[in-house]
């Protein structure tokens, strides 16, 4: 049976895609109807009084009491009872929200300016959150820099992520589909770009992981590895098409001949194969505050220990590829020897 109130709710509430949605929405709608009834009553009475008791020639107001203890107690106690009910309903829903299911799978979440990284139990990392329908998950969340907040409207779930703390939340996705993950704690320039996809798949957990989140660096082209690392780590602040973001764009970085820094010094390069250039890139990733590009804030966190030398090498290969401002996915290397050759070429200068 279709509930008419339920179908009305689609105009002001997102789809119900998690185990919390129905309970939360019931309270939302209950408060909505309580509010509509009391608000309409207040406004009707107000306008009605303003019309019939307006000052006009020949109108003499009748005397009326200036207080009435009974009436005042009524509208102290009446609303109080309703409020107590709302409080308990809200607390009940909150209790569900805070009691993780025993069979929840753990995904580690790292929030950073301005992107997300999801690490699955098999060690794989993605920048899009992949979930399996009806599989409860628990997110173990940390932040790399400032406060962020994990919010998927369809799940009715939200949790702030503070640096220096571990935050945990859980939910069970119940509806297959694609949703948006928003950062809802203001985190700086790219805050509104910290939006990623959440995909709830029909496949069971293990199969879903194998199909969607598996990425073997040794089976992929080094440039594709670089692109993936770029999306995970760099894309929040650096573009490669020349558009303005918090940090300098990667467009033209490989063909750079001279770089000026905020402290007045500068560096010259003779191409992206030169040691100077590769050292500079490697240093900028490991110790970003050593050299600040002129005109940009000193805001980048250090990635020392977070990226392996091989991975920095992949990023360097990627930088050379996007020097012109566009990226084309390289064809997958066909043979094992090609993979080996690619990986060898990608190892960063020590």
């Amino acid at each position, binding site marked *: 049976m279709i509930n008419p109130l339920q179908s009305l709710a689609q105009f002001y509430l997102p789809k119900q895609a998690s185990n919390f949605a129905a309970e939360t929405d019931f309270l939302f709608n209950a408060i909505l109807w309580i509010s509509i009834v009391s608000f309409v009553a207040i406004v009707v009475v*107000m306008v009605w009084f303003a019309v019939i008791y307006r000052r006009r020639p020949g109108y003499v107001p009748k005397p009326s009491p200036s207080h009435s203890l009974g009436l005042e107690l009524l509208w102290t106690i009446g609303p109080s009872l309703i409020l107590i009910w709302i409080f308990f309903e809200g607390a009940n829903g909150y209790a569900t929200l805070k009691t993780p299911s025993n069979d929840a799978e753990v995904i580690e979440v790292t929030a950073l300016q301005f992107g997300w990284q999801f690490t699955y139990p098999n060690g794989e990392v993605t920048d899009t959150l992949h979930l399996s329908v009806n599989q409860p998950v628990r997110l173990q969340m940390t932040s790399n820099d400032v406060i962020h907040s994990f919010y998927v409207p369809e799940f009715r779930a939200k949790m702030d992520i503070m*640096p220096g703390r571990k935050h945990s939340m859980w939910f069970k996705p119940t509806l297959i589909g694609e949703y948006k993950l928003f950062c809802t704690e203001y985190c700086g320039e790219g805050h509104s770009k910290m939006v990623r996809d959440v995909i709830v798949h029909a496949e069971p957990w293990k199969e879903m992981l194998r199909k969607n989140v598996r990425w073997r660096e040794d089976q992929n082209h080094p440039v594709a590895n670089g692109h993936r690392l770029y999306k995970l780590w760099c894309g929040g602040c650096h573009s490669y098409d020349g558009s303005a973001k918090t940090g300098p764009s990667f467009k033209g970085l490989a063909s750079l001949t001279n770089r000026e820094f905020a402290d007045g010094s500068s560096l010259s390069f003779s191409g992206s194969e030169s040691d100077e250039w590769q050292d500079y890139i490697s240093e900028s990733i490991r110790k970003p505050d050593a050299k600040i590009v002129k005109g940009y804030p000193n805001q980048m966190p250090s990635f020392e220990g977070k990226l392996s030398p091989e991975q920095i090498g992949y990023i360097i290969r990627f930088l050379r590829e996007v020097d012109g401002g566009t990226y084309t996915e390289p064809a997958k290397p066909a043979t094992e020897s090609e993979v080996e050759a690619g990986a060898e070429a990608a190892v960063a200068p020590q």
Partner: protein
Amino acid sequence: MATVTQKQQLFGHAPTNHYLDASRGVMSWIFTLDHKRIAIMYMYGVILSLFLAGIFALVLRLELYTPGPWFLTSAQYNQMFTLHGAVMVFLFIIPSIPAIIGNFVLPMMLGAKDVAFPRLNLASLWLYWAGGFFFIVVLATSGLDTGWTFYTPYSTTTSTNVIAATLGAFILGFSSIFTGLNFIVTINTMRPKGMTWFRMPLLLWGLYSTSIIQVLATPVLGITLLLLIVERLLKLGIFDPAYGGDPLLYQHFFWFYSHPAVYIMILPAMGVISEMLGVHCRKEVFGYKFIALSSVAIALLGFLVWGHHMFTSGQSEMASLVFSAITFSVAVPSAIKVFNWLCTMYRGDINLSTPMMYIMSFIFLFGIGGLTGLWLGALSTDIPLHDTYFVVAHFHYVMVGGTMTSLLGGLFHWWPKMSGRMYNEPLGKLFCLLVFIGFNLTFFPQFIMGSLGMPRRYHEYQAVYQIYHQLSTIGAFTLGIGIFGAVMTLVYAWFFGRKASGNPWGAATLEWQSSSPPSFHNFEHRVIVSAPYDFSSVVYDESVDGYVPVVPKREAAPAPQPTPAPVSN
């Protein structure tokens, strides 16, 4: 009996020798100790801040007309919303009603010449200017992009001018504390004979409750901002985990002030509404004691609910439960006020003037603002709504729909007293209507996009939310025109309005027993104290085109009672 000329001098329009022309020159204003002139100078600053922050708001709304970036970069957008919030909160809404209407009216309602500490009052004004100066420094240098809340660790790491802004807010805090202290002492010590606590006008109850919060809560903000400055300058770990601090501590400190500050903003507004409602319905305010005590109750309970800003922050679950429960207890006194206001209108003699229009607009908008608080106080529904446009709409309904509406209404109500002139009634009503329509068009769609999941402080957004943003932008410009028109109506009246008598509304509170505008010393005669809403205590007098107090019948002193013998033990 007083002659007609005497009557006109005491209770009519004062042609000369009033506070505005008592002395001349810029210095006579900058160094004045007169509470009325201080109120007028506050008004310049507050209205200027309203326009400045209002322009920021219109720029934001225009930019949000399209989902992608239009004419602002993300960095510029972030600066705009930060400055809109910071200027509105610290320079407009916190000082607004206490500093303008409170300063002007409070001593006069007590039949007094001035506040208890006139020099301290001037110091508050100077501090307000000094604080404002720091915000101008912010604008002229690298700006500010932290949001008005200055959440750490972003505020310790951003390269914008956080120190100037927090220093400005720190200084403004002192301005607020001094005003609060002054009002508390004035109300405690300077009430005239016969004015007991429960014969005080309700505005004074509102201002008194506000002052308690200002004095108790503002120092916490001062300390918090100072610690933030210390952390930025000396890298001392207090709030930033990079140095061993805790960002949650900052949020507790910040909201310990900033939630009570919400009541600094709304309690005076409720006082203004209660006050005007009695006058314009010409009827004793219904349930006086409940309204008076509910202000005090809100002020005290308001100290215990700060954690409801942090339900998603990772504070302990038990803390969230307790804060949610106490939050609902604050809703009760607010509801009492609304019902009592309605009952005041029952069988009233309702004068449908511009202030009355603002009162009804207030009840409508505050009704929505208050009721939408229920979703945010309940834990499970707050979780998805927190930090979305639903919250933005909620606090604008309370702060703008509540406080700003009541400030405008209050200015229209007391304008004859402040300026000695009447405003144009049809124009006043027209712009009130425009403000009402524009306001609802701006903020109602924000509730819907908020419950659909649109996060706040977003420069770019998903295209599905565009229609709500477009309605909101159109509404914002309507609202802007309405506010500008209302202020211009008042400015026009100041210079060209019809001359007003001392008591054009027939109000029974003491400030109306002076001429309009009042003389330098406020009253040229001994004030006659009656109950604040006993409207039989004033009668219409044609010779002054306004109301004059009824002089109580004098009777011979009763025969002296025999004094009882002192009890000795």
